[in-house]
Structures are given as C-alpha cells and as structure tokens.
C-alpha cells in the first residue's frame, strides 16, 4: 500500500507522457491527483497502528508527522490539479507534455519525502523534487524564466548538497561515538543521547542551512522571488505550499534527533533567530514592492520564518506551526492562483500597469484581496488561528522578546503587503490594459474558491480529526525516545 502512494503518481506520469493529445493530457493530472487523494485516505484509515504502514525494512514509514504533511500535500495538489486543465487550455499554444509529467513526478517525490525514515533516502527525494520542478519554472520559455530556473536549480542543488554533507556528519557522529554508523531516523533518535555532540552540532548547522535553502529562509532565500515571480501560478502554489513544506519536514526530522540528543537548546536558538530574521528580511522587501508576484515570494519567506520560529518557541507553538503549515499552504493557493489570473488579464504583474482588478476580473480581484487579509493574519481566516497560537505560546512561556518582534514584523508585513495589494485591486483599470480577452471562468476560479473556502473553514473551526492528528504529530515531535 505504501509503495502505491509513490508508484501510482509515477505510473500516471508515464501514462501522461505517452498520451499524444495536448488538449486532453492536462485532464490526466486531476485524475491522478484524485487517485492519490483516495490512496492517502485509504492509508489513513487502514486498521492497525502506524507500524502497519511501512516498507523497505523500516525505511518508509507513515508516522503522525508524515501523516499531517502527506494529507495536506495531497489536498493541496488535488486543488491545484483542478486548476491545471483550465490554465493549460488558455496556454494551448505551448506544448504541455513536460509540464504535466513533471507535476506528477513532483507529487510522487514529495510523497516519498513524507514517508522516508532514512535520511539518505529523504535527501534523494528532496533533490529529486528540485530537479523535477525546474522544468515547471521554465514553462514560459523566455529570458526571465530562464534566469529564474538557472538560479533555482543552482542555488537549490548547492544548498541541498550541503544537506547531504550534514547527513554524513550525522552518520559520523554515531561512528565517532563508537556506534554503528547509520542514517535510519528511528535508530538515530534512539541513540541520540550518545551521539558525539560536536559532530551533531555541525550536522545540524549544515542540514539546517541545506534544507533551509530549499525552504527559502533568509538569507538563503535569494532564488525565491525570481522563481515565484516567473513561475505560473499553479507552480508557485506547489513550490510555496508543497516543496517548502517538505523541506520543513526534513528540518523537523533533524530537529527531533537534536532534541533527543544534547543539542536541543542550541537548535532552538538558531530556529528562533532564523525565523525572526526571515520575517524581518521579508518585511523589508515587501514594503514598496511593485511586482505583486515577487511580493508573494517574500510573503512565503515570511511564513517559512514563522514555521521555524514556532518550532523554536516550542510547547503549544509546535502545534501552531503545524497548523500554520496547512493554513499557509492553502492561503498561498488562493494568492498565487488569483495573482496568476490577474497577471493573465493584464499581461503584467507590476502595480504601474495593474489597477482596478476588482473591476476587470471581479472574482479573482476579490479573492486576491481576501487571500491577502487571510495571510496577514486577519480573523476569521485560518492563519489568524495558527499565528495566535504561536504568539500565545511564546507569551505563555515567557519569551516576550520573540513574541513582541513577531507581532511587530507581522504588522510591518501587513502594511507593506497591503499597499501593493490595494494598488492592484482598487482604482480604475487603464484603457490599454483591458483589450485582452481573458475573463474569470469556472475553470480558473473554482479551484481558488475551494482553497478560500478551506482557509475560511480552518479559521472558524478545526475539524476534530484534523485537530487530533495535529496533536498526535506535535506529541510525536515532543517525545524523547
């Protein structure tokens, strides 16, 4: 069963590759996504404990943490896939074979990351997501997307090479301690107290920088504005919601080993510092940002910062961070897809040209505005709940400085982002920008509405099964085994 989760999307990728029709091929993506979602649901409700869902002699295992990320990814991908046929129909001039195939390969590799309990295997899967998503960025085949793809590929590969170096250090720390060297996650957590502290220390730094690059934490975020700025909206959603969440999961796994070992305090300090730094850098660059897609990239940097900050603060904030992972990903779906629609309607993504989106494309404009309110933490949307949980935990555990800075930076981001978003949405569209025949249709708006509905739902009410799953995952992270 566990193998099917990975093999099914790969098989569908092969089928997609074989299908000759440019017109019908995009429809295979939602079909594959629905199948994946079905498999995930089936695995979740499989009887027996977690160990029942494992494979390759313990290399693959579905633990509570993996469940949260996998379930979220599957929903995210499904909603994105609904957008694909409508979007690709608008771009019928471009061949979409590579695009559709790579979407499914990315899904398979993200699934593999969530299931990996071997740090080497996880590394291979993580690098594979980078490689499979690079052609997605280059979909538009122009000079700007070329530059973005090159930066993404090179910075991502180098970053992740450092993560491999860190994984080796981790294995060496057990060798140095006189134990058998291993990269199996469960064994490492078990022997963590005995691991050589110096090597563990160095391993954490390298792994954090490596996977942090993939997550897009400042100051390793430089590829992000270029990549998200040039990528089609659907790819932006997958990267900002999916791939970065996988990298966050990788960091959580490493953190868990450090926590069980002697490095908990050090790791937490780094995470709080890097989290706040990412938020600060993002806030600075969001102010007066004229390009609204680049602005979304900085918003992603900000929210990646919030995730590691939440884990660094600890306690109930870990639950908040996991909830925020879901809220952020879904809200990014609203923002990237509606921004993509606005971009299409105006043929531009800078606020000099784009004005009055709410008149030109009423639905996308309204959703973009609502998505902005949600992501900046306004009630009654989901991110408000998760951010509130994190602040609450910080204040409750006496970390007033972190809590104060967190609120201050959220405020700056709200103002910076608000100026750009309002410039896009309000006003009257200039005459020359309305001669393009794009209009909101069901195909390109319904998936965005679904994303928005989920964001609103999570703001009003976290369903008990989800809540218990998140609690389980937070407990799984907290346990010292």
């Amino acid at each position, binding site marked *: 069963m566990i193998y099917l989760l990975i093999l099914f999307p790969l098989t569908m990728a092969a089928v997609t590759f074989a299908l000759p029709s440019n017109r019908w091929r995009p429809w295979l993506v939602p079909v594959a996504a629905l199948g994946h979602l079905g498999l995930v649901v089936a695995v979740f409700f499989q009887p027996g404990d977690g160990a029942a869902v494992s494979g390759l002699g313990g290399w693959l295992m579905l633990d509570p943490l993996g469940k949260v990320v996998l379930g979220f990814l599957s929903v995210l991908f499904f909603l994105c896939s609904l957008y694909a046929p409508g979007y690709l129909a608008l771009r019928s001039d471009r061949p979409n074979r590579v695009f559709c195939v790579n979407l499914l390969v990315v899904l398979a590799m993200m699934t593999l990351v969530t299931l990996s309990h*071997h740090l*080497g*295997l996880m*590394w*291979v899967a993580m*690098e*594979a997501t*980078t*490689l499979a998503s*690079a*052609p997605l960025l*280059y979909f538009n*085949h*122009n*000079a*700007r997307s*070329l*530059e*973005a*793809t*090159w*930066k993404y*590929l*090179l910075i991502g*590969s*180098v970053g992740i*090479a450092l993560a*491999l*170096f860190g994984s*080796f250090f981790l*294995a*060496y720390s*057990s*060798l*140095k301690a006189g134990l*058998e*060297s*291993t*990269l199996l996650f469960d064994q490492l957590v078990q022997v963590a107290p005995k691991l*050589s502290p*110096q*090597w563990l220390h160095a391993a954490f730094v390298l792994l954090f920088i490596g996977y942090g690059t993939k997550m897009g934490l400042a100051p390793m975020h430089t590829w992000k*504005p*270029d990549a998200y*700025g*040039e990528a089609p909206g659907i790819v932006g959603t997958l990267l900002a919601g999916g791939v970065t969440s996988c990298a966050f999961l990788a960091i959580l796994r490493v953190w868990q080993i450090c926590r069980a070992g002697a490095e908990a305090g050090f790791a937490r300090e780094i995470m709080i510092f890097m989290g706040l730094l990412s938020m600060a850098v993002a806030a600075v*660059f969001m102010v007066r940002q004229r390009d609204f897609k680049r602005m979304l990239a900085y918003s992603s940097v900000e929210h990646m910062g919030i995730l590691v900050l939440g884990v660094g603060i600890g306690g109930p904030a870990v639950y908040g961070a996991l909830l925020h992972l879901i809220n952020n990903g879904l809200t990014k779906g609203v923002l990237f897809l509606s921004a993509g629609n606005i971009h299409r309607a105006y043929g531009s993504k800078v606020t000099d040209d784009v004005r009055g989106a709410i008149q030109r494309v009423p639905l996308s404009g309204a959703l973009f505005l609502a998505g902005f309110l949600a992501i900046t933490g306004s009630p009654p949307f989901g991110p408000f709940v998760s951010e509130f949980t994190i602040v609450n935990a910080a204040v409750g555990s006496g970390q007033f400085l972190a809590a104060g800075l967190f609120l201050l930076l959220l405020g700056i981001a709200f103002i910076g982002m608000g100026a750009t978003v309002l410039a896009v949405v309000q006003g009257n569209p200039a005459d020359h920008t309305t001669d393009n025949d794009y209009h909101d249709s069901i195909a390109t708006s319904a998936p965005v509405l679904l994303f928005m509905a989920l964001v609103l739902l999570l703001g009003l009410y976290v369903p008990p099964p989800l809540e218990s799953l998140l609690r389980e995952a937070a407990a799984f992270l907290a346990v010292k085994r």
Partner: protein
Amino acid sequence: MVQLLDPLLIVALALNFVALGVSRIRAVINAVALQGILLGIMPLFVHPEIGLRGILLVVVTIGLKGFVIPRFLTHAMREANIQHEVKPVVNFMSSLLLGAVGTGLAVVFSYTLPLADEHTDSLLVPASLSTVWTGFLMLTTRQKAIMQVLGYLLLENGIFLFGLLLLEAMPFLVEVGVLLDLFTGVFVMGIIIYHINREFASISTEHLTELKE
C-alpha cells in the same frame, strides 16, 4: 592497499588546482573527470573487502563521474561553441592562491576535528574539505554556466570523499540514488545551458541580471 589511498588523494587535490588555474573549459572538464575516476576507485582502497555491490558501485561511479557526465558537458560546450572562461570575477592567479589557502586551512582544521581514532591519520577529511572549498570557489567566481556546473561537481566530489568514511552507513540504494540525482541534475543544467545559449547567444551568467530588486 590502504597505503595507496593517500597518493590518490594527493593527485585528486592537485586536480583541484588544475580546475582553478586554467581557463580552457575542456581542460577543466578533463580534470574533473579524472578526479571522478580516482574517487570511483577509492572505495577499493578504503574497504578492501567490498563485496559485489561495492564493485557495482565503483563501476557506476566511474562510469557516471568519469565518462557520462564529462561527455555530456563536452557536448554542451561544443553546442554552445565556447572554449574559455574569459573573465572570471576573481582572476586565475588569485583563485589558485585562494585555493591554496583554503587547502592549507582544511589540513590545519582537520587536525582540530574530533575524528574517530582510525581516521586521525587519513588525508580523507582534509581532501574532502578542500575539494568542497574549491567547488564553492568555482561556483562563485566563474561566469560561464558550464564552469558553475563543474564547480557543483567538485562540491559533490568533496562530499563524496567524506562519504568514504561511512561506506557502511550509506546503503547501496542511497548511493545509487545520490549518483542518479547528480546525473539528472547535470543533465537538466545542461539543457538549461543550451537554452541560455540560444536565448542570449552566450552562456555567460552575467546576462542573467534582469531579475533583481
């Protein structure tokens, strides 16, 4: 057998300097390819009782790092019709100097590292750190996209050297996966290089400056 490892490592280190000091891209590709072959045979010296899977790994490593990837890069170079790195950000003399300083520091630094007893005399750790450093130098100071890919390859070679200390921990499947990722990575980079060349009639990354704040 194990005594032969250090001379091999010294040759591999010397190749780092070749890669840093010459402008002919062909020469750099050859240096990196030769280093790949040396790296490929090293597991035989580190763990003499290596078994069938180890032999297979040796063959795959040599094949990919020594032949397939260099062939592919040579092809990309011809396709793009460039032979030289013309103006690196840091000139060749200074690159060599930086490389030498880095290698010296790597040696000194490895003596201070808390290595396991059986590794304290080995050149593996300094060679690994120095090669990683060389890779970073190439990545940051060269403007031609192919040279940056070669820098990335050197970086991976350096990490591979460290991995030799832990051959037992890295199962066969993962090793092959890492190599496969490396190959696919270079392959995708090669395709992008081809497109950069077509778009700008040059593969210098100095043209890639449109996206900034």
